[in-house]
């Protein structure tokens, strides 16, 4: 590619004769994702941004939050609180489960 792009969006054309085109408009597109290693809850297999399987069945979507550990693995808080009663380890990496944060 050998095109030259004007640095200003509204630069007047024609000043530089070797200019092939002028950039007139930018369309910025932003993509976001959770800053954690996995976005599907490995316990109930539902995306962590949606309510967990149990809360969906009980129609309690509002209170269903995400919890992530110091190992950076994330789960639904509901799913994880049931599991830690059995074994206080991350179901994915087996490290001791230490909560880093919770949130929506």
């Amino acid at each position, binding site marked *: 590619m050998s095109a030259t792009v004007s640095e200003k969006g509204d630069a007047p054309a024609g000043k530089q004769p070797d200019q092939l085109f002028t950039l007139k408009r930018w369309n910025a597109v932003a993509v976001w994702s959770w800053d954690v290693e996995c976005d599907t809850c490995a316990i109930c297999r539902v995306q962590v941004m949606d309510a967990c399987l149990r809360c969906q069945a009980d129609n309690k979507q509002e209170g269903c939050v995400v919890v992530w550990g110091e190992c950076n693995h994330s789960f639904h808080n509901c799913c994880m609180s049931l*599991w830690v009663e059995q074994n206080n380890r991350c179901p994915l990496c087996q490290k001791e489960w230490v909560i880093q944060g919770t949130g929506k």
Partner: protein
Amino acid sequence: MLWNAIIFGPENTPFEDGTFKLTIQFTEEYPNKPPCVKFVSKMFHPNIYADGGICLDILQNRWSPTYDVASILTSIQSLLDEPNPNSPANSHAALLYTENRREYDRRVGSIVEESWKQ
């Protein structure tokens, strides 16, 4: 909830061509507690009890709620050719496995044939 499952004996092992039937019994606490998995077909293996119960760490103390039916069955399938003779559930099978592999393979061959009949 009770599921029925079949595990094919892995190729190039004495269990090859076997079609082993199992039951998987889930409780309400699944996946926080492992299901109870048992062979229905007669087995001859160092880590499988006479009643079909399986001695496998991931079904006991190393259970994780991320395991699903496919991963359980795959683990059991690999246990068939990689027994752990140090924690025997069938001491006769464990003894033959370590001390008389020919006889072990022959006994396994007979339960493979039996698995086709049920």
